[in-house]
């Protein structure tokens, strides 16, 4: 039985700065990392492996240098890593991404039954949270997003019970396997790779699947298979470092100015 974790390599956007003069992104020195939510997805996969004896496979669609990221996953304990990389996969939106990923999952499923696919809640670059539901829909799996705890997996009855975190409440849901779960960071705390595992991972290799192997129609993948087009990118007007009510003495007045500013910028609505 397989647990498949989907991980994406992303630029560490918390480190990205915007040039105040030109308004362009300063990406210099910003490293590529495993999408932080996906590290928790991977961790959950490893825990399931330890608890129920699954085999854990990590898959990622991305440029060839994603292999570095995948090696990290192996150092943490993943059994196998599959890198989906091809010129034809480039420029994909979530629709085209979920197509490639779900086809890869199907392909893995030919050899070994897939029980659970784990995704992160969302990425920190694309930020859409759409790929997980996309995969579930395409494969007809049970879809469980916003999961903050896996309560139990019943392999005989082919059921999984999870807790979902919603606004102001939690929900315990039982679903049939196979299932796609998208996890929150709260679901677990991460592990750190041991040195022997790191050394082992350094010599390991990710399995590379390009479109020759995948054999997908070009109109369903990459830029051509994307339903959305990114037209334009610009830098947001970022208020920063502004002192509200400089010199004003009356606290009421200053508070009013602040709250009004927040409302005006739509960060607060009452």
């Amino acid at each position: 039985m397989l647990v498949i974790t989907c991980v994406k390599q992303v630029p560490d956007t918390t480190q990205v700065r915007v040039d105040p003069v030109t308004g362009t992104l300063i990406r210099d020195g910003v490293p590529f990392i495993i999408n932080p939510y996906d590290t928790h997805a991977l961790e959950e996969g490893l825990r399931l492996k330890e608890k129920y004896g699954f085999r854990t496979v990590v898959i990622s669609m991305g440029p060839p240098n994603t292999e570095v990221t995948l090696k990290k996953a192996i150092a943490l304990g993943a059994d196998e890593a599959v890198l989906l990389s091809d010129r034809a996969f480039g420029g994909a939106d979530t629709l085209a991404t979920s197509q490639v990923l779900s086809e890869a999952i199907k392909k893995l499923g030919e050899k070994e039954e897939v029980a659970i696919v784990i995704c992160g809640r969302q990425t920190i670059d694309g930020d859409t949270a759409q790929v997980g539901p996309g995969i579930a829909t395409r494969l007809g799996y049970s879809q469980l997003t916003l999961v903050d705890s896996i309560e139990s997996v019943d392999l005989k009855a082919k059921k999984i019970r999870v807790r979902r975190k919603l606004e102001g409440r939690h929900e315990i849901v039982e679903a049939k396997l196979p299932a796609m779960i998208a996890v929150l960071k709260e679901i677990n705390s991460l592990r750190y790779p041991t040195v022997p595992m790191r050394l082992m991972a350094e010599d390991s290799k990710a399995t590379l699947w390009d479109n020759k192997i995948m054999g997908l129609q070009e109109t369903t993948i990459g830029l051509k298979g994307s339903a959305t087009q990114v037209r334009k990118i610009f830098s947001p007007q970022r208020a920063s470092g502004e002192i509200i009510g400089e010199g004003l003495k009356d606290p009421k007045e200053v508070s009013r100015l602040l709250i009004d500013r927040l409302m005006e910028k739509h960060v607060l609505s009452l």
Partner: protein
Amino acid sequence: MEEVKKVKKPRGIAHLIPGKCIACGARCQSDCPEDAIEMNDKGEPIITAVKCIGCKRCVKICPAQALEMYFTPEEQKILDTMTDKAPEEAEVVEPGLKEYRGVWIFIEHTEGKPATVSWELLGEGAKLAKTLNVELCSVVIGENVEHLCQESFSYGASKVYLIDAPVFHHYRTETFFRGICYLVEKYKPEILLMGATGMGRDLAGAVATKLQTGLTADCTGLDIDEKGYLLQTRPAFGGNIMATIMTEKTRPQMSTVRPHVMELAKKDPSRIGAIVRESIDIREEELPTRVIEVIEDASGDQLDLAGAEIIVSGGRGMCGMENFSILQELADELGGSVGCSRAAVEAGWMPPERQVGQTGKTVRPKIYIACGISGAIQHLVGMQSSDLIIAINQDRNAPIFEVATYGIVGDVFQIVPAMTERIRELKSKKGGSPKNGSSNNGPSGKE
């Protein structure tokens, strides 16, 4: 004249403007017909000049305007002499798309209690519908939710598609998604909007995939272009850039929209409209998921810090345990949670699990309000990637102001109560009960 025409128009070679590429995911590379583009480790294109045929496809596709055509001075000269412009390729609109008409808003609710974002969407949807000159409709799915139809009308919808059945009691992806897909396939709207809440994002992702259409996430701006397409603007890259996204070739054009951003529609209870009742055959037994239990979260001070959208944090400047109550009051008004610096834990004013920072929690709320916190680096690392930071401190030189979006130089004991006061005042003006504000919108985009 004859002679000039014989000169071949130079096509130039594409090249990258340094610093502008945002590593969007190799759009340029995948659109290049000649495989002239390779991506480097930073995700930026390297264009092989000899392979480039100057087709400009990469230049057009690049969302960051990071690519341009390069001409040698000689070529430039020739270009300058040529005045005639090549005719713009006429865009071919797929014939099927015209069938889709109308703006639809999905009305989100938990067991009949509507989420405010739905009414915000009706407000925005009305503007879009007006520009397009089409109908504004709501989609209501649930059990015993007919009252939401009338509410939809009063917020501006002229038609409501209603599916009301026991199987829809709890929100579940399968049921709702089948309901919506059924309606969309039957009635063909051109635009479908949902709130970018936990539920909205769960549902929209499934619906768009099933309908094989484009979906833009977490939009903060919507508009219609001259051709009648929906322009969807959204933050990406952790809020560092804004992207305008379109769905040109498929319908409906779907987006999820961030709560609190669009203006709430004016409510007019006298408005009426048509209810289209639909039903679909879903049997409980064939559904893969079941909601076993719903656990209501403890409110107020027990709210978990890590997931809080708004955090009001206090430091040594709070001067005592009892004073944290003014922060709690503000947090309650905002639907947020109270955090603190290590100094406050050290003094025994707050429990350690409330500590934000290097050896405490790392948080990333939408709004972080630092009250009487100096901004030591050990504290900053725990909160500086919050979307918006407000600092209240007496000391104009406190390092916290370096990271604050908005700062107030003043006494927390005066400012904080005044802020709470102002919020209450605004809420009562709106006439809503003081608590229905921001707290019913589902977890949205960020954590």
